């Protein structure tokens, strides 16, 4: 596996792979920021500890993926210090702040499922064994994040006034923005980096969500403006207000 020092030296498949890994790593960075901001709302000491651990896990996964992006000529300087709000490639799902505890639980369920679904397709990659091992480790650690959100969904549903199902329906539409239109060319799959296409992964995501929530038939796919390099429709980047909260700060205090 070659280490490339500039983007010009990359094959088309490697460029697409680098973009997708950037999107997954940024999804984890922003999700870690969500956990950080919600931490104080942990409903018990065990919840506080769990949210803290999930935050730490997501930061660790993001950093490990950023480090792997070094293979594509990406530097730590670029990843952590020179990017602005418009350069962050996290899913649209995480743009809108949680509106309530149940909306938070619904949103983290969708985000954790979406990220794990996408990473699961790298676990068997023969083209990049380091990435395959990294994906496997991340997935094993993320299992407990999923248990946490599923457990809370079940608990919230005991209350007849709970809005968790409505919150999930809204968040599902936002989550699906992460996948493009079905059956479009998928060079990461055809080059053997992933063992499933984006269309199959979208379907896999809907199936796994369907074990916890009712998934309505005929959910609209993303608009034509969907771009694989940012895995989003519309303009690139996240809201400035969100970026200000999640960006790396105080460089002088950062570890070398």
């Amino acid at each position: 596996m070659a280490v490339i020092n500039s983007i010009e030296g990359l094959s088309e498949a490697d460029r697409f792979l680098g973009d997708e890994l950037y999107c997954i790593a940024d999804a984890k960075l922003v999700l870690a920021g969500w956990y950080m901001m919600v931490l104080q709302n942990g409903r018990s000491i065990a919840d506080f500890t769990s949210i803290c651990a999930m935050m730490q896990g997501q930061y660790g996964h993001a950093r490990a993926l950023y480090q792997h992006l070094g293979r594509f000529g990406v530097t730590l300087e670029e990843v952590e210090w020179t990017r602005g709000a418009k350069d962050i490639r996290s899913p649209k799902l995480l743009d809108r702040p949680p509106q309530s505890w149940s909306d938070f639980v619904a949103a983290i369920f969708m985000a954790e499922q979406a990220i794990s679904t996408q990473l699961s397709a790298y676990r068997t990659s023969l083209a990049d064994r380091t990435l395959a091992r990294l994906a496997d480790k991340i997935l094993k650690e993320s299992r407990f994040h999923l248990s946490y959100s599923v457990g809370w969904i079940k608990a919230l549903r005991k209350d007849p006034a709970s809005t968790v199902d409505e919150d999930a329906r809204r968040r599902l539409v936002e989550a699906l923005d992460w996948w493009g239109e079905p059956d479009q060319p998928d060079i990461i799959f055809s080059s053997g980096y992933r063992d499933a296409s984006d269309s199959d992964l979208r379907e896999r995501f809907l199936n796994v969500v369907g074990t916890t929530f009712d998934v309505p038939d005929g959910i609209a796919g993303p608009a034509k403006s969907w771009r694989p390099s940012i895995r989003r429709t519309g303009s690139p980047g996240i809201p400035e207000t969100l970026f200000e909260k999640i960006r790396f700060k105080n460089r002088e205090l950062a570890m070398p």
Partner: protein
Amino acid sequence: MMKKVIDRQLELGGDKPEFYEVFARRDSAEPLTHIGSVEAPNEQLAEARAWFVYDHHTWREMCIVPLSAIVTITERDSKSKVKVV
């Protein structure tokens, strides 16, 4: 000073306390040992809370048992309580 009142349903996810006992071992040579308890309204939340709260070792094996499934022998009818985390 006002005493904090816990809304069990809202803050803990269940209207009555349900406990799970946590057992773990660091390697296959060690016996499975009781390491603590968690309160949770269902298995999934108990699994996550146990894993995150008792993360002071890299466990080779961890399992949880609902307290309601444990048949007490020596402590039958006693008022002893589990340690709540």
